[in-house]
């Protein structure tokens, strides 16, 4: 199975695959613990406020951030090497999908374990929230597992799709994509300002509950994966 | 090492011939294999093989199945005779041409040859 070699390639640079994300997440975690210690010394009221506010803290993106970059690197650096060594695009796509799946499993289990411990120990005894936040799901542990898994898969495929599109269409893709995103942003802003009820409806959509949100994330991931698979079969190495 | 004015395989054949004439490759003895010759002369094995086959076709070398090529018995005499036949064309004609350019006549050439001996 030649696709196995794609997995081997991604395991060569262990610091990039596991090291840096773990270093980053440890650093962010230590910072949060430090904040917990300082705020905790100011009494239980401050602590309760912190516990509520921290459900929005994005320190966990220290882990999720590098994973977005991982999708870029795979297409940008590993794809040309794989083709150079005689792998087909299909073999590369199969291998890389397995790599993404492995990443999503490892990190979603890691985050879910962290969250379970965090809840059981009352925020590590400091009333802090690091794993149990809005982005990873504040519900049950299984929900966090599903949510982080879907989120990580989505960002990995999105990164790969963006890079594949860039390789295929060049700079033009970045301009067009940037312009479309800007138009959407302007459209929403204009809608909120000018249309009656638009803002309220938007808020309702945004707070539609956990289930529908998972469907949205899964749809973004599936669409990215589809676009990536479509493009990667047509990508040439300049 | 090899004469560049001739096709490479002919130069290879001539080098083996030189070896036979000067006793490097005695009659009934083996000559280098295609790959050895290729590595030694830094040429493609196909070219080396073509040179060896040229000599085999001319009866200078004989193939022994599974062992390699050997110098044919009588090859030395055969080569010597052929080179004698070519001597006038290959060596005397250019010599006389140059002599004519320089205005050296036949008597002078003979004198020069005697002085060299």
């Amino acid at each position, binding site marked *: 199975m030649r696709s196995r070699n794609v997995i081997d390639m991604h395991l060569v640079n262990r610091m990039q695959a596991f090291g840096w994300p773990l270093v980053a997440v440890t650093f962010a975690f230590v910072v949060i613990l430090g904040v917990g210690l300082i705020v905790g010394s100011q009494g239980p009221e401050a602590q309760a406020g912190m516990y509520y506010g921290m459900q929005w803290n994005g320190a966990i993106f220290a882990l999720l951030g590098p994973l977005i970059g991982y999708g870029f*690197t795979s297409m940008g650096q590993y794809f040309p090497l794989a083709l150079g060594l*005689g792998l087909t695009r299909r073999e590369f796509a199969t291998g890389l999908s397995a790599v993404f799946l492995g990443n999503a499993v490892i990190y979603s289990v890691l985050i879910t374990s962290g969250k379970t411990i965090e809840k059981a120990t009352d925020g590590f005894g400091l009333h802090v929230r690091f794993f149990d936040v809005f982005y990873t799901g504040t519900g049950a542990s299984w929900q966090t597992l599903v949510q982080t898994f879907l989120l990580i898969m989505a960002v990995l495929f999105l990164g790969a799709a963006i890079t594949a599109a860039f390789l295929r269409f060049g700079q033009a893709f970045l301009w067009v994509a940037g312009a479309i995103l800007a138009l959407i942003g302007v459209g929403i802003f204009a809608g909120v300002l000018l249309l009656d009820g638009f803002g309220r409806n938007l808020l309702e959509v945004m707070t539609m509950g956990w289930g529908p949100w998972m469907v949205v994330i899964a749809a973004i991931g599936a669409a990215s994966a589809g676009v990536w698979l479509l493009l990667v079969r047509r990508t040439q190495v300049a | 090492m090899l004469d560049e004015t001739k096709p490479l395989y002919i130069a290879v054949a001539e080098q083996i011939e030189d070896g036979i004439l000067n006793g490097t490759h005695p009659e009934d003895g083996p000559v280098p294999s295609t790959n050895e010759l290729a590595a030694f002369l830094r*040429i493609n094995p196909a070219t080396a093989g073509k040179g060896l086959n040229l000599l085999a076709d001319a009866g200078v070398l004989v193939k022994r199945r599974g062992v390699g090529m050997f110098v044919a018995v009588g090859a030395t005499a055969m080569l010597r005779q052929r080179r004698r036949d070519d001597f006038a064309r290959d060596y005397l004609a250019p010599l006389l041409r140059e002599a004519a350019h320089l205005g050296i006549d036949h008597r002078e050439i003979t004198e020069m040859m005697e002085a060299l001996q």
Partner: protein
Amino acid sequence: MSAIETRNLTKHFRDVAAIDDVSLDFAAGRVHGLLGRNGAGKTTLMKLLTGQIFATSGEMRVLGENPVENAEVLSKTCFIQESQKYPDGFRPLDVLRIAEGLYPAWDQGLARELVADFRLPEKRAIKKLSRGQLSAVGIIIGLASRAPLTFFDEPYLGLDAVARRLFFDRLLADFSEHPRTVILSTHHIDEVSNLLEHVVLLDEGRVAISAEAEELQSAAIEVSGRLDEVTAFIAGADVLRVQEIGALATATVHAEPGSADRARAAGLQVAPVSLQNYIVHRTTAAAAAPVT
């Protein structure tokens, strides 16, 4: 048997034809030279043949099949690219290990020997290697893979004379013992001319020459002597180049049977024209186009 056949193969990059209606055959089990100036289309042709880029039109068969997305063909093909990029943090050691897993005929013993011969610092990051060391990584993969079809694109870049000699001798020795099809693309024509059996010259994306190396090596002669004698000799001949210095002249002409003897009889000096010089003479753009 042909290792590679192309028919009317064409590749456009926007409106530029990098490969223009190329029909070629590369026989199996031989060493072929793929020559031409920078930008003549050599790398583009090799990328088409290894499925890295897609043809605009035309057909190709590599080891009997279409190579695009063909794992069967590609696992028997090794393409050593001058411009191969490696991911951050990769060391020669890592690339060799992965190549070992991908090429069925890989010879690990040979790879170890070559690493020692080229004094390749295996554990240094590839990004920190010199150009010559980077070339050595490619050469080691190209030789140790023992792929039935191996492309070397400018394997000599940055190598010193010792390493170039090493590559030549190792390629020759390994090719002798394990015959395979080798396509060698290089500007160092003189260094490899005795290794080539067949030569293809590309010029602006088209085939200028596809011929036996032996024919090309004796395809032209250089005659020199007095201007009037040279002028008389080359009248009616297919002249590639004439240079005059006062009353003397040197001319390169296509050789016909016996023309060297006739030139000598006419009192002219005759010298062989090396494959490299012949190729330079035959590259039409050489004189006209600015050097890039």
